[in-house]
């Protein structure tokens, strides 16, 4: 049994796509392979003409840092750092100058509506707020695309609505590609492309006008 089997799929810049399917259908595995966290046993993954399957582990890590942003289901913020420090973390890894880091952090906090909570630790933020910080963190290094694995799974409906709106705005304004794996009908409704996966195979791929 293969988690993903015979999948061939392309994503273009600026897409707002949702990968849907029941639990165990292979959505997360597909997302992980696109993000370079899993290797395909056959085939390859090309991101901007770079074949991820040919990169060594250390090269993959660097590639992810510079090209891909991640948003996780359970936020996965660093609990000992503030919201601002979490966002700055990647920029620190990339050795951005301090002023440039701080400016970008503030810009992102404003974009997600949390400029007043810059110095709050994750434990002082609601689930929705934490996920917004996670989105800001994913965008910090200006990646090619954001991979979001069930980003709304732990959120209430109001927070879900706010988060999707933020991501949609960023997608439209900055042309950032968003690829979600999701069960959430509200996310599917807002996606402009819906890829349905079942038993590791893509069974449908619909683009909306």
């Amino acid at each position: 049994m293969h988690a993903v089997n015979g999948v061939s799929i392309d994503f273009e810049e600026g897409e707002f796509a949702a990968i849907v399917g029941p639990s165990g259908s292979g959505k997360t595995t597909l997302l992980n392979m696109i993000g370079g966290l899993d290797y395909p046993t056959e085939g390859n993954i090309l991101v901007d003409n770079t074949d991820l399957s040919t990169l060594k582990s250390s090269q993959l890590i660097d590639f992810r840092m510079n090209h891909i942003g991640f948003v996780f289901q359970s936020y996965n913020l660093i609990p000992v750092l503030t919201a601002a420090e979490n966002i700055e973390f990647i920029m620190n890894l990339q050795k951005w100058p301090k002023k440039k880091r701080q400016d970008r952090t503030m810009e992102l906090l404003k974009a997600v509506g949390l400029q007043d909570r810059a110095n709050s630790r994750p434990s002082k933020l609601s689930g929705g707020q934490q996920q917004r910080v996670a989105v800001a963190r994913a965008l910090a290094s200006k990646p090619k695309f954001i991979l979001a694995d069930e980003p709304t799974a732990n959120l209430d409906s109001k927070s879900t609505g706010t988060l999707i709106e933020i991501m949609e705005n960023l997608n439209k304004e900055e042309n950032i590609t968003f690829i979600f794996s999701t069960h959430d009908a509200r996310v599917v409704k807002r996606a402009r492309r819906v890829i349905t996966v079942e038993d590791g195979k893509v069974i449908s791929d619909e683009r909306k006008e």
Partner: protein
Amino acid sequence: MMMILLTAWKNVWRNKIRSLVVIASITVGIFAGVFAVGLMSGTMEQRVDAALNQEVAHIQINQPGFRDNYDIDLLLENSHEVAKQLENISGVSAVADRLVINAIASTATKSKGVQLIGIDPPKEKQVLELDKTLIAGSGNYFETKSRYKLAFIGEDLAKELNIIRFRIDESVLDSLSEKGIPEEVISKIRPFQDTRFASEKAFLKSMKNVLSAMESKTYGGSILEEAWTFRDRSKLTLTFLDKDNIQTGGMFRIAGIYDVNNSMFEESQLFVLQEDLKELTGIDKDAAHIELLKIIDRDQTNEITEEIRQLYPELEVLNWKEISPDLAMMTAMVEKFHAVFLIIILAALSFGIVNTMLMVVLERTKELGMLTAIGMNKKRVFTMIMSESVFLTLVGGVVGMIISRITLWFTASKGINFASAAEGFEAMGFSAHIYPSITNTFFITVTVLIIITGILSSIYPALKALRLDPAEALRTE
């Protein structure tokens, strides 16, 4: 890098209680180990100092074979000339010569074999500090004017020969009252007023019969101290052979009694004026059995000993390590104990750190997976885990070292009194009042080793963190 270190420092305090427990265990371990080493070092240091300053000096020179039987005929001729030459050697501080003769010391009730040491007090004072060990109120160091020849004897010999006695009289009871001994205790010993006890043993036995165990333990020392009496003008008889093997001797007045906290030494070493001994034995004025040397820097003992051996190949030249091999052996053994203690402390520290950090890696599997996913490379993950370990170690280590330092500083000035075990200590030649000591080198060494241990202990947990597959780690609950 700063971000990694800052994050690592904050991670240490993520679980405050666990971190504080680990830090406390490191602190206690370090403190206990360093203090124990300080106690051992201080004890040995005091013993060696006492031996060098009161008993054997740094170097001794005598005729070959003299120490086998202390043959009176094995003399150093022209000893004054030899002494002058020795004084001119670089590093030598002072020289004194001695006669050493086996003798019997007797009083009316007891006798004992002793070693009679004929000294020249002014020269002897430059080499050894025996004069400073005089018990207050027991006389002086050969300053008495008497028609009798003078002897300077050890406290334990004085007790053995019943020269020191124990007596409770009105003045003793008054002194005990002034010292704050409860009236209840004083009334128990009052029936012994004007009783003279022949020995310390008999005195203590009588006290134990009337006092409770707690009272004996608490007040016994003070009662013994006050009841201690020494009759001024006490005398003893010394009997020995002269240079012609004819028995001779004389009556000596006790000039003073010394206490060097070494029972064996006090019972055997009895000091008289060299001129008196030469008069009685017929030994030449310019001869001696032993030259005693004091040197400026103890660390130069071996070099100076070799130099003197080159100068006097026909004589036996021994340094303190050779004269008291037991002392040298104990010193070497204590140094090895330091190393063993250090290894135990560091091993315990290491296990504690490895255990804690493995738990940390396990608990943060998902987070570590996330960090790798978003682009934190292996080197940075490794650095972060290692930094957390080093910070934990450093905090516990530094606090432990500070507490040890303060405790050692305090106890080094006040000392720790093991009075209840004084007899046992003195029987082995050790003072019961110990002043712990630690060298700065040891302190620095321990600090550096703590840091190294922290670093090395973090390697395994950090490697565990590196082996995590980010995709698998992210799936962890």
